[in-house]
């Protein structure tokens, strides 16, 4: 198939260029928002990891308390 040239009116061309520029800025904004979501997700993941570690530590300490109370050395 042959490639045919297409002509656009100058007024419409200006409108098209305005829309293209607006689209560019909106895409930049969307990229920024996506980056922010990614950062917040990382924060959430890191917080969950901290909780996981803290809970494991609490469990360890509880185990130590339980050992201290149920199995005294000189009994």
């Amino acid at each position: 198939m042959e490639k045919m040239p297409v002509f656009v009116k100058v007024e419409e061309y200006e409108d098209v260029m305005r829309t293209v520029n607006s689209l560019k800025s909106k895409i930049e904004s969307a990229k920024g928002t996506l980056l922010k979501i990614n950062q917040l997700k990382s924060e959430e993941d890191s917080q969950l990891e901290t909780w996981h570690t803290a809970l494991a530590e609490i469990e360890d300490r509880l185990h130590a308390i339980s050992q201290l109370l149920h199995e005294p050395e000189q009994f």
Partner: protein
Amino acid sequence: MAKKKKTTRKRTARKAHPKEEKTYFIGIDDPAELRKLILEPTREVVQFLQSYEQFKKTKEEKTQSIKQLKEDLSQIKSEMAKLKRLLPAIKIEKPARKEKIREEVVQEVTVRTKPAPKPSGELEELEKELSEIEQRLGTLPE
């Protein structure tokens, strides 16, 4: 009156000591260590709750950002539609050879895939839109 008081006293005395229980004591070698073991997890739980508040804020912020992204994308969609309106519409003839191949592929796909459950509302609309775009893209020459 005095007789009645005596009878109640006897009853309570029987209930208070039903069995004699032996009391045992366990020696704690290092009470300071035990207190530390109890206090440290308590401190951690308090810190945990503090960070939960922060987590809640982050989650709210994330939800807000997702809403913002959806808004950004819908704006992009409308701008793209505007761009499409502004540019001249040209009818492009479908390449015959490609169409044959596409038909074969579509037939294969219809035979293999099971009917999926119908999505509803916005999702269905988006899927329809997507299939329309894909159809148009298929008609364009490479």
